């Protein structure tokens, strides 16, 4: 389990990194945290001809608190997000999710941008970003563009990134008033790939009726999966236990879970239903708590 040969580059700037990626084409990979890429290389399942190491690029790291949104540099490490007081205040769903991402040693290296660009269907951050209506800043030699998380994830390990393009930053919008959040996940062991996970943000109006509910699931499709049927089931209703149960059941229409040795598609459907109900329940409880 030793990696194959590759050319290694450590650019001094994002511009240089983009130039290197453009120069080496499809056989070059950006090396962010490397916590998915390096194991794949050790198994020799990934054999990139060149690695462009982004780890020295301080301009890509950091957490910024803006008026409308929280901004995370792509090379912000998971541990920094997990420990950040700003994130806890501005994007508590993200904070709640971080301990589910693998193990502490992995989070010390893993990066936000790396997780998003990798787009593993069992990864937590893509679903949280979709639930949070985040948007990503993509940059290439030809310029920059913003893309909504929902549109960024295009399939199984597939994203809207063009060749030579990097995720450089993430913006997570501020929570609306009377918004509750919750992340629920079941995995075989703590830190394993989720069998199913659910991230949700629920906003109620002053009368306690559901205004919006963003529900995104992981490990139930080719990427993070939004649950519009569940959202629709909640629209305008009081989040009673029955209403939440009905919304959770509605998730079944939104997902097409895979089977693997740890969980059949049927079991994943069960888990999706249960975890969605639990997540919605906790999110609504949080609104009640903060309102009281």
């Amino acid at each position, binding site marked *: 389990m030793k*990696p194959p*040969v590759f*050319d290694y580059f450590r650019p001094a700037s994002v511009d240089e990194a983009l130039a290197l990626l453009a120069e080496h084409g499809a056989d070059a990979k950006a090396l962010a945290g490397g*916590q998915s890429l*390096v194991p794949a290389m050790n198994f020799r399942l990934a054999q990139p001809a060149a690695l462009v190491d982004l780890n020295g690029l301080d301009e890509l790291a950091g957490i910024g608190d803006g008026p409308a949104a929280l901004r995370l540099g792509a090379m912000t490490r998971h541990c920094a997000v997990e420990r950040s007081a700003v994130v806890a205040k501005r994007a508590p769903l993200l904070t709640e999710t971080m301990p589910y991402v693998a*193990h502490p040693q992995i989070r*010390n290296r893993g990066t936000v941008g790396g997780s998003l660009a990798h787009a593993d269907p069992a990864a937590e951050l893509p679903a949280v970003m979709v639930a949070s209506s985040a948007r990503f800043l993509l940059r290439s030699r030809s310029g920059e563009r913003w893309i909504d998380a929902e549109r960024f994830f295009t399939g199984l390990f597939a994203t809207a990134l063009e060749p030579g393009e990097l995720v450089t930053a993430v913006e997570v919008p501020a929570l609306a008033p009377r918004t509750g959040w919750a992340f629920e996940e079941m995995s075989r062991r703590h830190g394993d790939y989720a069998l199913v996970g659910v991230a949700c943000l629920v906003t109620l109006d002053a009368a306690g009726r559901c205004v919006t509910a963003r529900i995104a699931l992981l490990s139930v499709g080719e990427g993070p999966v939004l649950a519009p049927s569940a959202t629709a089931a909640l629209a305008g209703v009081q989040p009673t236990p029955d209403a939440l149960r009905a919304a959770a059941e509605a998730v079944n229409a939104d997902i097409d879970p895979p089977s693997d040795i740890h969980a059949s598609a049927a079991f994943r459907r069960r888990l999706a239903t249960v975890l969605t109900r639990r997540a919605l329940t906790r999110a609504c409880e949080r609104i009640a708590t903060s309102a009281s």
Partner: protein
Amino acid sequence: MSVQAGHVVSLTVNGSPATRTVESRLLLSDFLRHELGLTGTHVGCEHGVCGACTVLLDGEAVRSCLLFAVQADGHAVETVEGLAAGGELHPIQAAFHETHALQCGFCTPGFLMTLVPYLREHPAPTEQEIREALSGNLCRCTGYKNIVDAVALAARRGAAAGRHGAEAAPARRGGSGASRRGAA
């Protein structure tokens, strides 16, 4: 010079500078073990699950099997060999010894290196928090109980000394004979 071979890596390991010329693909774990002869860092899975190869990179616990040696250029690495200063066991090492927190000892360096920064940041963890902190390290021999006890012991001593975690408490020499301690 090829960009695959011939990368000069200069880093600090356990406080001492080291410079080697390596191939780009050389894993940090192999670099430490076979280039620098620091074989206390063990390799158990090479895909980032078992935690045996955990070392500190600039003070943070990382899997050395998921880093290339070239990435450590200019950084500080600490390994298990650096823990016992001047022959005195580090408090977490001493606690492992006293609570019988190791059997074959193969996974132990990875646990120790995970715990050193953890206790620095979490001086008074609960049992559940300790177990969560350990969840990225696999041990096949002990069933973890005594490791949990060791962390709690080291934390208590750190707290008793009024200092934080691992830096606190006088270390006891290991293997210096039998104590008549009661059940753990």
